[in-house]
C-alpha cells in the first residue's frame, strides 16, 4: 500500500459511518534500522494549513486558537491502531461525539443553525 496515494486525503468515518473529515495529515514514527511507521492520522484546518506551507500552517493555528480561546492548539489526531476498514472511506473505531473534532459543528448547531426555525 502506498501511504500517500491510498491514505492521505481519504474520507474518514467513525464507527457509526458519520463523515468526520479527510485524512489531512499523517504522523509517522522514525525508527532506527527499520522503515518508518504510521502512528496516527491528523484532521482539521491546522493540518491542512501545514500542508500548504509553514506560514499558512501558523496562520491556521493562530486562527483556531483565537476561535477556540485556547493558548495552544494542535491538529486532531486519531491513532492508527483504531483503523477498522479501508475501502471507499477509512473507518476508525471511534465515536466522533467523544472527540473534539466536531466542536465547531456543535457550536454552529447550537448558536446558529439550530436557532433558525425548521432546522
Amino acid at each position: 500500500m502506498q501511504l500517500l496515494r491510498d491514505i492521505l486525503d481519504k474520507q474518514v468515518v467513525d464507527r457509526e459511518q458519520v463523515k468526520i473529515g479527510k485524512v489531512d495529515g499523517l504522523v509517522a514514527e522514525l525508527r532506527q534500522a527499520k522503515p518508518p511507521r504510521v502512528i496516527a492520522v491528523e484532521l482539521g484546518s491546522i493540518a491542512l494549513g501545514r500542508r500548504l506551507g509553514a506560514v499558512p500552517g501558523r496562520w491556521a493555528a493562530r486562527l483556531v486558537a483565537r476561535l477556540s480561546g485556547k493558548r495552544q492548539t494542535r491538529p486532531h489526531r486519531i491513532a492508527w491502531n483504531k483503523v477498522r476498514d479501508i475501502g471507499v472511506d477509512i473507518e476508525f473505531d471511534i465515536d466522533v461525539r467523544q472527540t473534539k473534532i466536531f466542536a465547531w459543528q456543535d457550536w454552529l448547531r447550537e448558536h446558529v443553525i439550530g436557532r433558525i426555525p425548521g432546522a
Partner: protein
Amino acid sequence: MKKLLEISLGVVTSVGGFLEVGSIATAAQAGALFGFQLVWAVVLGTICIIFLVEMAGRFAAVSHHTIADGIRERFGFNAFIWPLLAALFVNFLVLSAEIGGVAIAAELATGIGFQWWALPVAFFVWLLLWKGTFGLIEKGMSMLGLVTLCFVVAAVMLHPDWKEVATGAVPNLPQHDTAKYWFMAVSILGASISPYLFMFYSSGGIEDQWDKTYIGANRAIAGLGMSFGGGISVGVLIVAALVLGAHGVTQVDDYNQLPLMLIPIFGFWGFVLFVVSLAIACFGAALEVALQQAYLVAQGFGWTWGEDLKPRDDPGFSLVYTLSVFLAAVPIALGLDPLKLTIFSMALTAASLPLTVVPFLFLLNDDHYVGEHCNGVISNAAVIFIIALGFVLALVTIPLQIFGGA
C-alpha cells in the same frame, strides 16, 4: 421496468433543468445578431457536456466518490485547492446571475425594479434548500422546468429554414462583428459546459445511491437529457434570430428586449410564458448552484453532507449554502445589471474549464476508482478535446471580453 421509469425521469430532469439564465441570454444574443450562424457553438457545447456528465455519473456510480472527492483524494489537497477556489468563484458569479434572472422575471411581471427582488428570491431559494429534499429539488423543479419547451414549440411554429439551421451547426467564420462573434461563441460554450452541472450530477448520483447497475441508465440520461436540453437552447437561438433579428433588434443588451421573443408568436401568453420560463429556469439553476457550493466545500473537507438530512445534522453543509445564497444576492441587490453579469460569468466559466476538466482525464482512467469501467478511446479523445478547447478559451476570453463584450 423500474430502470426504464428511472431513465425517463432522469431524462426529464435533465431536460427541464438544462436551460438557465446563461443559456437563454447567450442564445438570444447570438441568434439576434448572427442568425443561425452560431448554432454550432450550442451543438459543440452540448456534445462536450454530454461526455462530461456521463463520466461524472459513471465515476460516482462505480467509485462511490463524487468528482470533488475524487480530485482531492487523487491529487491531494494542495492541487485540489485550485479547482476548489476557481469553482467557488465562478459558481458565485453564476449563482448571482441566476438570482438576477429570477429577479428580472419578477420585475417584468410586477414592474418593481429587479434589485428589490434579489433578497426575497434568495430567501425563497434558501427556504427550499432548508426545508426541501434532494428529490423535491431535483425532480420537482425540473418538472416545472419543462415549461421552457415553449421555446421549441415557438421555434417550430416559426417554420425556420431547417437547411439553414443545419448549415449553422457546422462551425463557420463570421462576415461581420468578428470580435463579438467569437466572444459570443465563448459565452455559449461557457453556458453549456458548466462545471456546476457535472459536479452537481456526480453529487446527485451519490445522493440517489447509484451503483454499477446504473451505468447504462447514466449513459441514457446523460445522452438523451443533455441532447434534448441543448435542443431547447437551439430553440431559443432560432426564435431570437427569427423574431428579434428579423425585426432589426440585433443588439440584445437590455433584458427588457427578451420577452419580445415570444410575444409576436403567442401574443400576451408569449409574455407570460417567457416570464414563467425565465423565473423557473433560473430558480431551479439557483437551487442547484447553491447546493453545489455546499457539496463542493463539504466534500472537499470531508464534512457530513446531504440535502436529505436535516440542517441540524449537517450544520457545516447548511451554513455554506445559506451564506452562498445570501452573498450571491448582494451584487443584484446593489443594482448590478443581471444580463451583463450573466454574459461575463459565462465567459469566465469557459476560461475556468481547464482546472475542472483536466482531473477527468486522470480519474476516469484510474482503475483504482473505475476499474473495468475506464474511459474508452472516444471518451478520452473527447476529454482531451475539451481540455484543449478550455485552454484556448482561457487564453482568448480576456482579450475577447475587451473587444467583443463591451
